[in-house]
């Protein structure tokens, strides 16, 4: 089959049929989009999870909005989001830059570094529960008095414990993302800076950071939106306690729906969760700007 160059130009290349996307679309519509609509609908009903669903208008919303526990859950969520970001972002960035360099023992280190990625949140939470025990854990083991605390029973300390455990589990993932970003920076930039006599700190500030702009946005988005999904870790570690001190929004939603059997109020909380998540994701994308095709070539 010979073709002249004149009709090589896109011979009936209309691309494939969009129907190839249909199976994925159907799955996603049924188990994600319909439930999205469903959670909005259910927030205007009263349902105990068993009996009939009854339309109630704004009753559930009134309950949720006037309940001080809701405000507290929002506050706890914001605190965990903020602190876990403040802790994770710099550590992940530094580790990403460090592990992207060429140390001899990198392969061995990498296995250990990324080990927490493999553990389920339930496993991590159970391990830390034992580790933080004031009688049989790390503190008495290392004989360091300041580490012997009732970490999970003290409502002033527990939030920081939760943030630490979150960082322990998720820093490796973000380190990976930064590592990938750093490896995409053209070496020529550093060579040029080297010739200009820029030191390591200057190179980091003037090349590495600006070049990592989109990596930072990606990682931060995942971090912030992800913190709305910290459910299992906190559920197993503290159950939301002591008191309400670690009961963040997803956990509050679960307890309201499946423990207090108020599915209507829980759905309203779910809607709030979705709105916050969507708002944050859009905000972060907006901050990052739309133009993702900045030349990565010369011109730092």
């Amino acid at each position: 089959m010979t073709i002249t160059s004149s009709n090589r130009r896109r011979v009936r290349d209309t691309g494939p049929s969009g129907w190839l996307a249909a199976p994925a679309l159907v799955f996603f519509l049924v188990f994600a989009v319909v439930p999205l609509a469903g959670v909005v609908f259910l927030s205007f009903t009263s349902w105990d999870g068993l009996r009939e669903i009854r339309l109630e208008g704004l009753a559930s919303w009134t309950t949720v909005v006037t309940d001080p526990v809701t405000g507290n859950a929002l506050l706890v969520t914001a605190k965990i989001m903020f602190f876990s970001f403040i802790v994770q972002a710099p550590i992940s960035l530094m580790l990403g830059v460090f592990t992207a360099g060429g140390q001899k023992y990198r392969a061995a280190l990498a296995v250990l570094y990324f080990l927490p990625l493999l553990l389920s949140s339930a496993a991590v939470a159970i391990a830390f529960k034992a580790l933080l025990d004031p009688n049989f854990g790390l503190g008495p083991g290392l004989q360091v008095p300041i580490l012997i605390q009732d970490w999970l029973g003290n409502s002033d300390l527990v939030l920081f414990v939760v943030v630490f455990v979150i960082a322990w589990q998720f820093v490796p993932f973000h380190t990976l993302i930064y590592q990938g970003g750093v490896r995409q920076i053209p070496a020529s930039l550093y060579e040029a800076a080297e010739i200009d006599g820029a030191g390591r700190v200057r190179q980091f500030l003037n090349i590495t950071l600006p070049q990592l702009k989109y990596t930072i946005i990606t990682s931060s988005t995942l971090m912030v939106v992800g913190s709305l999904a910290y459910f299992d870790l906190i559920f197993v570690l503290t159950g939301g306690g002591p008191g309400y001190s670690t009961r963040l929004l997803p956990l509050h939603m679960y307890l309201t729906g499946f423990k207090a059997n108020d599915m209507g109020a829980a759905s309203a909380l779910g809607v709030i969760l979705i709105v916050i998540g969507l708002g944050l994701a859009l905000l972060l994308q907006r901050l990052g700007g739309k133009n993702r095709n900045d030349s990565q070539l010369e011109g730092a």
Partner: protein
Amino acid sequence: MASTTQLPTAPEAPALPQAAPRPNSRRAGRRRPNLPGGLGGWLWLAVIVLPIYYVVITSLKNQAGFFATNPMLPPAEPTLDNYKLVLENDFARYFLNSVVVTLGTVIPSLFVSFMAAYAIVRGKGRFVSWTNNLFLLGLAIPLHATIIPIYWMITRAHLYDTLLALILPSIAFAIPVSVLILSNFMRDVPNELFESMRLDGCSDWAMLWRLALPMTKPAVITVGIYNALHVWNGFLFPLILTQSPGTRVLPLSLWTFQGEFSVNIPAVLASVVLATLPLLVLYIVARRQLISGLTAGFSK
């Protein structure tokens, strides 16, 4: 800011458009050890290793030894009794359930996501771009907030407390990130290849499996591993959609085991180690794939 000094080296070849082949930024001409980076790296390594070390040595202690010896010292007489106890408690069944749910989710979700990614990258028209936008939206929404309508749907479909109840929503939730990463890779396949196959009279279906799949195989494997990790460690769906031991998966079994054996911390930690072992093996076998793919998916 490149200086105009004449270099003894050959001028750089014009950089290729940023595509799959990554410039390796092994920083040339720099052999000074990065002290602060190294120090931070080792420090974080200690933070990661200490809890893991504690979990492993404690799981090898008997209860008397656990109460008597320093928590951070290895047992004088290591014992595997705890592991035996965990294995006798139906561990094999939970493991099998996890395998079924993971494979039952990953294989179908890869299949439908791959077709969708192909349609999105190669296809034209409003339907395809609309579908893509919907999936992107799915990335920004904390989908777990829809758990209550999903619970309702699953109970109405008489699937409550079956493994299928976990598989179906998990497939849907895996689709957005799978399509994103797969389509990122698919864009790197040169258009000419598709066009020449098209001219040879190939159908889309043939192109999908004979060209797109071989060309994006690493991405497919990566996405598969990534999703497998998430499903394997998932906790919320099993917690809400199953209840009997017959449908229990590993992360949930850790939690229930902890409830039953709360005083026997060594046994609880042995269950944590056992649940992690299969993933550790997988990770050691396919680490490169997992890591390169994750970063390529997120830092483009």
